[in-house]
Every structure is written in C-alpha cells, then in structure tokens.
C-alpha cells in the first residue's frame, strides 16, 4: 500500500537542491574547492606517463 508517487516529492527535492545551490556556504565551498583543485587538473601530464600509455598502445596494435 505505498502511496502513488506524485510530483510533490520531486518538487520538494528540486526545491531543496535549489536552496542548497543558493546557500552562501555552498557557493563559498565550491569556489574554494575549485581554487584548490582546478590548477591540479590543468597541469600537464608527465611525459613518462604518456610514454607508458603510448608504448602499451603500440604493443597492442
């Protein structure tokens, strides 16, 4: 006897998500995490690692 799923729960969930996205701490946290980690993601891949992958590619082809 589970109640039928209406749009209310999904509406509530969307509202909660929107509320969280507008939360100042949430904004601050996202910005801080991006400052800490984006730089890391943008760094060039070490040549040695690329060579390892390319060597394996040649062996398999």
């Amino acid at each position: 006897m589970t109640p039928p799923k209406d749009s209310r729960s999904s509406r509530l969930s969307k509202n909660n998500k929107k509320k969280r996205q507008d939360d100042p701490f949430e904004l601050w946290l996202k910005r801080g995490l991006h400052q800490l980690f984006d730089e890391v993601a943008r760094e060039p891949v070490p040549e040695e690692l690329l060579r390892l992958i390319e060597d394996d590619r040649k062996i398999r082809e």
Partner: protein
Amino acid sequence: MTSNFHDQVVTILPRLRVQALALTRNRTMAEDLVQDAVCNALAAQESFIPGTNFSAWMHRILRNRFISDLRKRRETTDIEDVPAAALATAASHEDRLALKDLAEALDRLPEDQREALIMVVIHGMSYEALAEATGCAVGTAKSRVFRARRQLEAWMTGDSHASAALQARVARVKGILAERGIAAGQGMAEPRPL
C-alpha cells in the same frame, strides 16, 4: 578498439589526478598513485567491456590501488602540499588564509567523504556515477557528500576549530550574498575575491 581504450586513459588523466590528490592529500603520492592505477588499467584492459562506463571503471581501479597501498604502508599526510599551487596564485593574504583553512578542514574529513565531495564538486559527477566509481550504493554516495558538506560547514562557520579570520570571512560572504539575493550560477561566475 584498443586505440580507443588508450585514448580514454589519456583523456581521464586530469580527473584521476584530482581523485588521487583527494585521497592522498600529497602531490608526489598522488602522481605515483595515478601512474600505478594506469599500469593496473593497462594490464587489465582485457577485462574492460567496451560500451560500459569507462570513467567508473578507471576511478575504481585508482581507488582500489589506493586502498591496497594503504594496507601496505602507513598513511602519510602533508597538508601543506595540497593547496600549494592555489596558494601561490590566490589574490590576497586573506584568500590564502581561507584556502589554507579549507585545505586543512578537508584534510580532517574521512577520505571517502573528501573523495566523494571533490568528485561531485570538481568533476560535476552525479551521485549515480559516484556510486559506480567508488563501488557503493547511491544512498551511500549521497550520504558521504552530504556529511562532508555539513561537517565542513560546522568546522568553518560554527565551532571553535575554525579560525576567527575565516569565520569573519564567511560571515561577510553571507552578508554580501544575502544583500545581492544572489543565485548559484551568478555567484560562481564572479571573479575570485569573495
């Protein structure tokens, strides 16, 4: 097919590096972890089924390698190492302090929560993808991200562990955002200083 596999490995490397840094909190260890995970993936590429979720498969390999390494050696921590690049480029002294506080607070989180939060925020990963990448239920993935956010907020805005400077900063940010009635996307698109 083989070529496509290698292309996918190269493409995912930046994301693996972020995951590795989230787990190890140490640049050197993170680089080693990525390299080891790539070696494992290359050795196990026959077990990858084309058309399935490569990203989840690769993130899981890195995570398993991290856990396996942890068992072999005592965990080391170098929290100064994590934000080094960001700290070097942050605009102001206040920014650097706030980032350092955030890095230290991240360091205090359990590694599964830290990893979950970073993969969702930095990679924009869905809870479903996170669950698949970390080998847990979707509910567990959601819970890890929620607890990480809640814990960081408690540390950084509420209790005695947070620095006075940071608390003042967060209060100021809250005031500015409340005044502007700011929306999520707008806030993130602004230049760095809060």
